[in-house]
């Protein structure tokens, strides 16, 4: 009944458009704050160069911001177009943070971004500064709400299944709001955004210094980027670690997969720096371990074991058995809502209903599943181990590199020796790394959640719309075509304006390009 090709292409489309959207988001989050910092310095010191800096970096920010908004609408609408059953099943919970995001955050940044660009001559210095900070506040609040939504997908608290409406409904909104997973993700993600913003400015400033132009502006920009970047890089690593700890409490399979750990390790577990996971043979070969590290990250202790994939799968088989009970009771309740026995069974096992739904891949009826089918369904809960293993390690390597890079920048700046060419080259060439790290982080979080779209509640394949395969092929082709063309234009303009530099912006009389 479910067309698995439609599921695959819909997932590919969502993944591509999300990764594309996420090219613009971290930079918006980070740069908005840095613009606020630069303009604050301008208002406090009254030195015109800080105003020029705000305007110049603001131009690049604007090109990026517009794309972020446009590609964001695609994300919001795609839940409905391609994931209709998901929207039906969790809209009651998931839709709320999305709507509040619009009310609280998007309106703020969308309304004031216009004044940021067009209000320099129409506002007092203090008023304009407030406008800039409101844009930054809006960008950062939007991250908060989307991560409350995403945190709920990873750790669905404060909601329960209602058999009368066949969907999840909010029971405790405070729990959804103060979901610990969402909070950790929020700080981790905005910190990643700050790193992106800092490295963007650091890298382009390094380019100017290498060319020996706009030296005053570039040096000051570098100083701001170095300090802010170092704080953010430390925060992104520490809060990433907090995410890891929480994941072990709520998504143990994700941690085991990231680690490529098939067998449960005696406490305290070691951490594999390198290894080659083999999904079919259920082993990870050629591992190089740091002793104790995983135990500390995942359990904050030296005596709690971290469960391996094989044991987790065995536990899942038991969950599926309970899920079958829940599904059977639900079937009876659909025809006879008054059946007291079934109601009691469903209430007892409703937390496992999602595990029953995993069997829909093998049998429409669910309750007639054979032991082999249950075993297959349990093994379906193992995500793509190699992808997670390597994505995670590359992301973490980037994180430690950022700390080293910004630390060096801070030291060189404070000694007035930022003009070291070797460093400028490293800073310039590091330009793409924050995006790489951010995209990999998204992969770890979302691929690591598979096969669930809502962890433990709704398998991804059930969330899909009843669209035809040709519809989805057409739309993915449309997105790829348009997004690729726009990416070319975007990069072309960015490079052009970086080359033109700040002197162009100060020229109000117009200049032939």
């Amino acid at each position, binding site marked *: 009944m479910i067309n698995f090709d439609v599921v695959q292409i819909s997932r590919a489309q969502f993944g591509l458009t999300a990764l594309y959207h996420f090219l613009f988001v971290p930079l918006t989050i980070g740069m908005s704050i840095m613009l606020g910092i630069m303009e604050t310095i301008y208002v406090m010191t009254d030195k015109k160069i800080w105003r020029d800096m705000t305007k110049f970096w603001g131009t690049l920010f604007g*090109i990026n911001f517009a794309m972020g908004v446009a590609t964001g609408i695609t994300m919001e609408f795609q839940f409905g*177009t391609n994931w209709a059953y998901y929207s039906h099943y969790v*809209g009651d919970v998931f839709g709320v943070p999305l709507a509040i995001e619009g009310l609280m955050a998007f*309106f703020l940044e969308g*309304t004031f971004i216009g004044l940021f660009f067009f209000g320099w001559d129409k506002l007092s210095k203090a008023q304009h500064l407030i406008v800039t900070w409101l844009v930054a506040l809006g960008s950062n609040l939007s991250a908060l709400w989307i991560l409350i939504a995403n945190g709920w997908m990873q750790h669905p608290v404060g909601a329960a299944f209602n058999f009368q*409406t066949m*969907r999840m409904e909010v029971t405790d909104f405070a729990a959804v709001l103060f979901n610990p997973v969402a909070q950790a993700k929020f700080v981790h993600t905005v910190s990643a955004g700050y790193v992106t913003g800092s490295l963007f400015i650091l890298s382009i400033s390094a380019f100017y210094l290498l060319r020996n132009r706009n030296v005053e502006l570039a040096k000051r920009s570098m100083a701001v980027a170095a300090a802010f970047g170092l704080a953010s890089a430390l925060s992104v690593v520490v809060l990433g670690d907090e995410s890891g700890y929480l994941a072990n409490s709520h998504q143990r399979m994700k941690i085991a997969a990231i680690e490529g750990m098939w067998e449960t390790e005696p406490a305290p577990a070691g951490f594999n720096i390198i290894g080659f996971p083999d999904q079919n043979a259920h082993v990870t070969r050629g591992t190089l371990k740091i002793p104790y590290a995983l135990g500390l990250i995942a359990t904050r202790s030296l005596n709690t074991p971290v469960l391996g994939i094989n044991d987790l799968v065995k536990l899942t088989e038991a969950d599926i058995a309970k899920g079958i009970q829940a599904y059977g009771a639900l079937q009876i309740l659909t025809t006879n809502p008054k059946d007291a026995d079934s109601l009691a069974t469903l209430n007892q096992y409703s937390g496992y209903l999602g595990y029953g739904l995993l069997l829909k891949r093998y049998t429409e009826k669910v309750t007639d599943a054979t032991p082999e089918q249950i075993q297959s369904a349990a093994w379906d809960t193992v995500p793509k181990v190699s992808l997670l293993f390597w994505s995670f390690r590359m992301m973490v390597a980037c994180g430690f590199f950022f700390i080293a890079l910004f630390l060096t920048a801070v030291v060189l700046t404070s000694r007035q020796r930022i003009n070291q060419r070797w460093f400028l080259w490293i800073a310039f060439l590091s330009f793409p790394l924050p995006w790489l790290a951010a995209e990999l982080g998204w992969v770890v979080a979302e691929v690591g959640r598979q096969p669930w779209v809502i962890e433990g509640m709704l398998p991804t394949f059930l969330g899909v719309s009843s669209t035809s395969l040709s519809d989805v092929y057409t739309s993915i082709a449309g997105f790829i075509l348009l997004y690729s063309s726009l990416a070319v234009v975007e990069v072309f303009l960015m490079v052009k304006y970086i080359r033109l530099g700040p002197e162009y912006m100060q020229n109000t009389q117009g200049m032939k390009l």
Partner: protein
Amino acid sequence: MNLPIDYVTLRVIWWVLLGLLLIGFAVMDGFDLGIGILLHRVARTNEERRVVLNTVGPVWEGNQIWLVLGGGAIFAAWPEIYAVSFSGFYFAILLVLLALILRPVGFKYRSKIDNTMWRSVWDFCLFVSGFVPALVFGIAVGNVLEGVPFHYDETLRSFYSGTFWGLLNPFAILCGLVSVAMLAMHGAAFLTIKTTDIIQQRARTYVRLFACITIVLFSVAGAWVAMRLAGYVSTDTLVLDAPSNPLHKTVVLQVGAWLLNYSRYPLTMAAPLCGYLGAIFTILLAGLRLPKLTWLMSAISIAGIITTVGISMFPFILPSSTDPNSSLLVWDASSSHLTLLIMLIATMIFLPLIIVYTSWVYYVLRGKVTSSYINQNQNSLY
């Protein structure tokens, strides 16, 4: 659970808010779209086009959030409507998305390079990004009035059995044209406020032209609904506060059913009346050269037309043509009681705030956009 507002009242409030958000989108983002539609008509030279684009340059991003909020609010308050309509109108939504993406890049990139070819390509993109969403949203509303071919299975998975080409039937296209005409009227009305001289004169002509077209097309659509179109009626006594499940009722089709509310509650006639009077006053006030009042009247006309659609269908929101019993009603397609309450509280806190700061932004940006302003800020403006 004991909540301070009962479920039925909350459902009605959220039906009203759904209408308000759609009106907010049409009124606030509508003039941006309208200006896109009219770009080539009201502005011929590059300088004129820059004047026109910069009238909305600082505000279009904020205005577009009405669409984002509309999407989010439907998702949260009417998840069944969101799921069925967005997946059913798959290509229509795709067209809107692709067209809307051209807008930010059109605005941002157009004037960054001084090349005639480059600029005319982006001007065309801006036209498309105004015209296509206006037309498609109208066509979607037309299809909703006719009923949409969808049904459910017992797990409440929805299936859409229509095609994209099926959306393009005569009545729906008529509704699409009403939408294009009223937004073009609204965009032109905004231009009469923000521009001077030749552009203002052209805009004034287009305000009156499109207000006339709006009146004519709205009347034709009304007559069609009264005489030809089958509306939907629920034949059971509905339980208004039951859990949202659209499978527990009987619905029949009946020509003229979409007019029943007007005879039952004559006060509701105010909605179509606003649609007409707003447009008529738009014509008169444009002639009297009172641009701000012209824009206000045009906004009232749009609000009246959208409200007319809502009231005609109440309590239906999304009727099903192939399985009328699966139609989505105010009483069986909403979120849970608690979610509607949370959403109402959030809206009551933030919507007034949004209105206050948006008004302040428009106040700061008051005044005309002229060619000398463009020439003084060649490099920083759109």
